[in-house]
């Protein structure tokens, strides 16, 4: 379908072409996908695991989208938006799967828009404010993307073998996307570290900003350990991810930061719903419209 101008497209009232305030208005993203539940898999844990991986992607997608129109150059605007879109696509599939496995009638939109902070299962790394704006800068955004995509790529390259057909399919698709994201972040790390003295300072500070939250990525959670053959135990991935990061740091003349991990709160981290204050502000913005006008479309 084509339109002569954007306004015509917006006002197109034809049938299912709803324009949405709440949710996507899209069909079920898992339509037609093999979704049989593997035998003997604990439902609560599989639901939680899909939420964990889905929330990581959703929250980082929102953070990256904040750079839209504010990146250092137009090409980077497009790049970060595209990476955010890939992650949003992964989030949609994983949240849909979580809702379906849970069987309580919650769909991807309900899970994205109507849960409160303590119900989100993402790692704290993805929620902290790395800019634009005073909370961070482009270098800290790149540092986070480098660490996160290296970690997630390691998870997904194993998740391809998952006994859950949806996780396996999402991972097979995601591996290719994440390899691109990691590559993009690595190239920027080299450019910033090898640029001017100032850009290098910012890159070093950016890594220091995100480093306290790196350890949490590799702490195995009871949910991951309760799903052998379905989930990936992240504690096994540390050597592989460290090797990737050390390769980038070596080429960039950077050192791996020696900064203590951020403590859990009463033994709980992001995976248990204990978040930094940044997540509340992020959700307030992300969920505002959907909560103000429940179910609205026009």
């Amino acid at each position, binding site marked *: *379908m084509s339109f002569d101008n954007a306004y015509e497209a917006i006002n197109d009232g034809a049938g299912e072409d709803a324009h949405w305030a709440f949710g996507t208005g899209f069909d079920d993203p898992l339509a*037609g996908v093999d979704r049989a539940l593997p035998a003997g898999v604990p439902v609560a844990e599989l639901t939680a695991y899909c939420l964990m991986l889905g929330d990581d992607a959703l929250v980082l997608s929102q953070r990256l989208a904040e750079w839209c129109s504010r990146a250092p150059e137009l090409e980077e605007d*497009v790049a970060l938006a595209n990476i955010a879109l890939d992650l949003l696509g992964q989030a949609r599939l994983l949240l849909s799967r979580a809702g379906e496995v849970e069987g309580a009638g919650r769909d991807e939109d309900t899970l994205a828009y109507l849960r409160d902070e303590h119900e989100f299962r993402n790692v704290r790394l993805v929620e902290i404010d790395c800019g634009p704006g005073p909370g961070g800068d482009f270098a800290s955004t790149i540092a986070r993307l480098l660490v996160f995509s290296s970690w997630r790529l390691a998870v997904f390259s194993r998740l391809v073998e998952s006994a859950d057909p949806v996780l396996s399919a999402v991972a097979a698709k995601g591996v290719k996307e994440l390899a691109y994201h990691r590559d993009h972040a*690595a190239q920027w790390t080299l450019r910033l570290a090898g640029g001017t003295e100032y850009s290098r300072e910012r890159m070093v500070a950016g890594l220091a900003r995100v480093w306290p939250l790196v350890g949490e990525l590799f702490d195995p959670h009871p949910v991951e350990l309760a799903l052998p053959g379905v989930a990936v135990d992240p504690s096994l991935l540390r050597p592989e991810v460290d090797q990737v990061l050390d*390769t980038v740091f070596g080429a960039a003349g950077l050192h791996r930061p020696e900064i203590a991990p951020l403590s859990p709160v009463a033994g709980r981290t992001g995976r248990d719903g204990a978040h930094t204050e940044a997540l509340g502000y992020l959700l307030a913005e992300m969920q505002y419209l959907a909560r103000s006008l429940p179910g609205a479309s026009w």
Partner: protein
Amino acid sequence: MVTARAVAEGVLDPELPVLTLAELGVLREVIESDDRVVVTITPTYSGCPAIEEMRRDLRTALTEAGYRDVEVRTVLAPAWTTDWISESGRRKLLEHGIAPPARVGPRPAGPVPLNLVPPPARVPCPRCGSAETTELSRFSATACKALRRCESCREPFEHVKEL
């Protein structure tokens, strides 16, 4: 009546409208029984926003061709690869100034190696054929394309990335 397969194969990709969905390799299966049609497609990227347009365009085309009961399904596995773009698809891309992707073959199992200095991609200019081209940005107007420039004729052009 035209077969459902022929109708579905004629539907154009919303983001690369020089190609049909069949040439792009996203059309997986068309099953026809009486006046019911089940079409299976696969997304190029997890977040591909065009997938809804594809579903709608398929439904519209098949409905207009007289099929009353049309279902469009999505499959994720096996994951789409640019290797599935057909020969005619590649030729059409080139004719429209878009460099087609090289063939990549199946992804080896196991960890994905980090390659900080990737071998220089040889992407000939779709306008003048020169091999002297440079990548300007890995992300172009859509997630599936990179932006390059020809150093001979100085024209920028898009390149469908290998995936």
